[in-house]
């Protein structure tokens, strides 16, 4: 049916991304397989390689990775306005839903059972983040990665103990990364 949509229109891009974004729980990485299924396999609008390349660029940019990827897909399909439509389609469900939730949140947060549910779920989120940190830290606990492990520990200490502005820490980490890369690159040449 939809696979006969050979030429993607702006509205088509908007509706496709809107559909994917509305029914995807659990954030960015869950949406990549869905984008692949829809845009690569079903609609044939982009190919597998392009999506992989776009995912890499999306990850290298600030902001929500999946929005970045959608924007790139939009650019590829219909230029600037395609990108704008993809951005709107991907972000609108989250904006509208959370605005609505914020409204109800103020109404029901005082309820005893709602509070209890939130307390339990917050504990769950704390565990999820702890799990993520363990997974993210694991690759750096190696001898050849000691410089990057130091960046990790340094960033933690700077934020937790010294209360240094997060913005400064992020810029510093990026700078140190560039310096390490440059020094290693030069050593290899010599």
């Amino acid at each position, binding site marked *: 049916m939809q696979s006969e949509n050979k030429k993607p229109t702006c509205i088509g891009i908007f509706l496709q991304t809107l559909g994917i*974004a509305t*029914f*995807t*729980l*659990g*954030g960015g990485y869950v949406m990549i397989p869905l984008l692949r299924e829809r845009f690569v396999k079903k609609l044939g609008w982009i190919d597998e390689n392009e999506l992989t390349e776009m995912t890499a*660029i999306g990850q*290298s940019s*600030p*902001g*929500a990775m*999946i*929005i*970045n990827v959608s*924007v*790139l897909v939009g*650019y590829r399909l219909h230029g600037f306005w395609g*990108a704008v439509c993809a*951005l709107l389609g991907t*972000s609108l469900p*989250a*904006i509208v*839903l*959370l605005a609505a*939730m914020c*409204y109800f*949140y103020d109404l029901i947060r005082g309820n*005893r*059972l709602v509070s*209890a*549910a939130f307390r*339990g*779920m*917050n*504990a*769950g*989120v*704390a*565990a*999820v983040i702890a799990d*993520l*940190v363990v997974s*993210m830290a694991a690759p*750096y606990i190696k001898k050849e990665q000691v410089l990057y492990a130091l*960046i*990790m*520990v*340094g*960033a*933690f*200490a700077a934020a*937790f103990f010294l209360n240094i502005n997060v*913005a400064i820490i*992020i810029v*510093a*980490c*990026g700078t140190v*990364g*560039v310096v390490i*890369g440059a020094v290693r690159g030069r050593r290899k040449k010599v």
Partner: protein
Amino acid sequence: MIYIKLMLSFLLIGVLGFGGGYAVLPLIQQQCVQTNHWLTMTEFSDLLTLSQITPGPVAINAASFVGMKVGGIAGAFLASFAFMLPPFLIVSLLYVVYRKYGQLKTVQNALSGLKPGVAGLIAVAGLGVIIETVWGSAIVLASTDIFSLALIVAALLVLRKWKPGVIVTILACGVMGVIWELIRPLFE
């Protein structure tokens, strides 16, 4: 004016939010809890929970929630679009550069430094949520919420061992919270 402050805060979060999803949490926490006092730490923890159990990127969820709280519907859209603008411009630029020159060594080097740094910062945000959930404001032994602490440890063990979905884990913890609230009088 509140809208300008909101916009500037989320523009900054958008510029610096490298690493996707959870990586923006430390930035949001600093801007919204510490610097501007738009959210309490409890509300920030609740916001994380809501972001996890609803569709869409965590950062957009957070921007919309905070914007709505501070400036209504207009605030929700303003904060979300302010957050998305810098990445949109950067992605546009990168796309052009990438197509022309292939891989950018410097960008990759910067990212390899950012990734471990972001891991460290997420650890700080996670620790904040743990402290808020178990102790409230300050760490005092007497105010330890043993139920929450046990729930966090149990959920972490289950996550490491069986890798269930994030949403299933969080909702199960919510159910446990309600059950505990209902049966707690029996123990007191």
